[in-house]
């Protein structure tokens, strides 16, 4: 199952909710303002690292670049472009968008 998060981890608790509820073995894709969660040194780093123990974590590269943080992505987070985004959606039969 693929979980998509688009809200910043600092102003919205969707990342916490998702990581609490999502079953391990699934995938999490961070897009739009949620990509800040994938950056080193941020207060969300430990949550993402913890999540990576049981899930695959992806982040949308163009959104990281747009926000000037593409050079500080946490090791182990997989970057995808728009085509990769489509592949993830196609590969996963179920999808939850944490709006």
């Amino acid at each position, binding site marked *: 199952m693929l979980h998509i998060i688009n809200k910043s981890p*600092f102003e919205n608790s969707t990342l916490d909710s998702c990581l609490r509820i999502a079953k391990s073995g699934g995938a999490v894709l961070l897009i739009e303002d949620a990509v*800040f969660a994938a950056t080193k040194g*941020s207060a969300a780093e430990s949550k993402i690292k913890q999540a990576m123990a049981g899930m695959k974590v992806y982040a949308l590269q163009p*959104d990281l670049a*747009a*926000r*000037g943080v593409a050079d500080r992505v946490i090791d182990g987070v997989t970057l995808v472009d728009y085509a990769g985004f489509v592949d993830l959606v196609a590969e996963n039969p179920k999808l939850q968008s944490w709006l």
Partner: protein
Amino acid sequence: MMDEMDMEEGGVVKKFMFVNRKAPHGTIYALEGLEVVLISAAFDQDVSLAFCDDGVYELKKGQDTKGIGVKNFSPTYRALEGYDIEKLYVEKESLEARGLTEDDLLVDVQVLSSAELGALMDEQDVVISF
């Protein structure tokens, strides 16, 4: 131009603080806030900008929006000085929570603690939030 002169004759200068709390490209708040600030410069008021929470990301160096097809307005913050808007405050706690330091920012700012920023906010005549 006429309106500017009228304001000067009025002679009322108020302290305006624009509080920026949103990351730049996920929503329209940051850009709208910046445009309002630029327009406010025409009225010769005492304008200051505060950046806290995700608003600190508005000032992050190295933004490149080509891949998401929206305007990169981050260079415009560097134009504020030319508009005589020189009071830029950034909350220290918000920077730290995001793994950022003053060196990551594209303009000179004054870094304040939450308490200091709160005190400054309290001194304003008008606080406008984006």
